[in-house]
């Protein structure tokens, strides 16, 4: 057992809908080392949230394997999975939706402790102590302990979400767009908080986002997804300075730079993300790709290692 905390092998998740098979995650493999952050980037509908949930087995994977701390957890029975939930947690995107409106701040933070039976509900004093400790940790004023979510702003709600995820002392946290719903000035507060907590507790993050610039300074590795497939994987400098996949290039060039003196040199990307239902063989980006050749829409490209740690799935490199 090295210091790899999470290893995902050929993970696939299909949903069976009325109109056909929806391929949300297709054959994705990667590893995350303890204490590091993997940024998962892609546009809406690319399957990045499904990937995160499949790893936590909130969605049962269709095929593939997930190893956590060296153990294969893909088929773990519910009782053992419940134990494992102590170690892997999730922070959600929408702080307005992810908190039970009928639970006060203290109830929300205490809920995990009761569900995992760390304390009995009679141990009021201990629970309260722990709740206050968590509130201090995530920067929530103690006087808010009895407030309800609807009385608080987005930033504070997200702090509750973080406290709830952290109270069990997990090692690995899936962060599903934790700052996308927040105002920019609050966004920075939360990102910094998450960075601090990572340092303090040696946490491992899988940071899911649609915004490449958000993961740039947080991640050790970035995984770019398009329509359920991993199109590129690399370190931030590899992805930002030397993006190989045409989609990564397009994504980077579409971000408006906050500097009027750097005009956007946009890679003209036409069309929109196609439906992931009953998708056939071939590169899923082919329809929008500037460099698409005939084989692109017929044959799925292999994942190629271009340099150490930099993988790309594109026929241009095969």
């Amino acid at each position, binding site marked *: 057992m090295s210091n790899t905390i999470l290893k995902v092998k050929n993970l696939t998740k299909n949903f069976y809908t009325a109109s056909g098979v929806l391929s949300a995650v297709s054959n994705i493999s990667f590893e995350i080392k303890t204490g590091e952050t993997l940024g998962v980037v892609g546009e809406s509908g690319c399957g990045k949230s499904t990937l995160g949930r499949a790893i936590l087995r909130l969605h049962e994977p269709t095929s593939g394997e997930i190893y956590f701390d060296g153990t294969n957890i893909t088929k773990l029975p519910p009782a053992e999975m*419940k134990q494992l939930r102590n170690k892997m947690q999730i922070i959600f995107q929408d702080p307005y*939706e992810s908190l039970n409106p009928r639970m006060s701040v203290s109830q929300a933070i205490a809920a995990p402790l009761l*569900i995992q039976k760390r304390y009995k509900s009679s141990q009021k004093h201990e629970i309260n102590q722990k709740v206050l400790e968590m509130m201090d940790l995530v920067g929530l004023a103690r006087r808010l302990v009895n407030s309800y979510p609807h009385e608080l702003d987005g930033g504070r709600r997200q702090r509750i979400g973080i406290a709830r995820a952290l109270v069990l002392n997990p090692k690995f946290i899936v962060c599903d767009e934790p700052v996308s719903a927040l105002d920019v000035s609050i966004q920075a507060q939360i990102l910094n908080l998450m960075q601090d907590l990572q340092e303090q507790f040696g946490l491992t993050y899988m940071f899911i986002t649609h915004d490449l610039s958000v993961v740039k300074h947080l991640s050790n590795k970035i995984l770019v997804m398009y329509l359920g497939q991993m199109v590129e994987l690399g370190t931030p400098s590899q992805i930002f300075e030397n993006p190989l996949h045409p989609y990564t290039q397009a994504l980077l060039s579409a971000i408006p730079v906050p500097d009027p003196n750097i005009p956007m040199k946009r890679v003209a990307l036409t069309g929109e993300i196609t439906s992931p239902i009953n998708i056939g063989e071939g590169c899923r980006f082919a329809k929008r790709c500037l460099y698409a050749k005939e084989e692109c829409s017929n044959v799925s490209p292999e994942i190629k290692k271009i340099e150490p740690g930099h993988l790309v799935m594109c026929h241009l490199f095969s």
Partner: protein
Amino acid sequence: MSKAIENKANGQNKARSAWSEIIRRFKKSKPALFGLMFILFLVLVSLVTIVLDISNPEIYNNYVIKQNLRNKLDPPSWQHPFGCDEFGRDILFRVIWGTRYSLFIGLISIMIALFLGGTFGAIAGYYGKHVDNIIMRIMDVFLAIPSMVMAVAVVAALGTSTSNLLLAIAIPQAPRLARIVRASVMTVKDKEYIEATRALGASNATIIVKYVLPNAMAPIIVQASLSVGTAILNIAGLSFLGIGVQPPTPEWGSILSSARTYMRDAWHISVIPGLVIMITVLSLNLAGDGLRDAMDPKLKN
């Protein structure tokens, strides 16, 4: 302007729970408050009559069911404000003593309906797919039968007794409530906080009982409170048909039923109990509507 509320909370740290917020908004609607007051008044009236019956059964025997043919069909007067019925009994007394039947049969039958419909609706909504399909198709079959006809059928099959009457009223209402519960559970179960709870390792039963149902409650309570009105009408209807509460018990519907024959000679014995039923049902509907508005977060300001 939820920001405003948030910032106030920052300053004062006053815990305003979702429920106290609802109560505050409910109070702002005058018709709803009137409805609620009238229902509480009726509850009080029935409780008082129950206490009186226990402490002094003579009142019931002498004033409510004892016939006094000298006063037969007397119109309203100072002595008998609501007038007298075909056996010379004071209608005011009969209406007051009849409150408990309408009210409690209405309330209890809806509770039964809520329990039955709620359980099936919650299961159908939470588990979805085949479970949902099977349960809801059975409910659809029940919904296809007019509620009065079904109630009559239930009473006819099981015989007339209070408990059968409760069932007869509850069974046709259950599928309606099941639909509401199912829809409401379905919207709540996909919320992220439910997923968050699942990620914490909570079991399905815990999630349904502690997380889904409390949040799905609002529309259910509203529908249930509106259903009580329907239930009261159904009881009156059954009694009117002669298969509900049996005479001489002074149930409102049975008072109306016996009044039918004398409608031309004595308007008051049908109009007055009819008005009482109407006002009661109206009050329930007003209170239910007020509750719905108070619980709708979109109408917050």
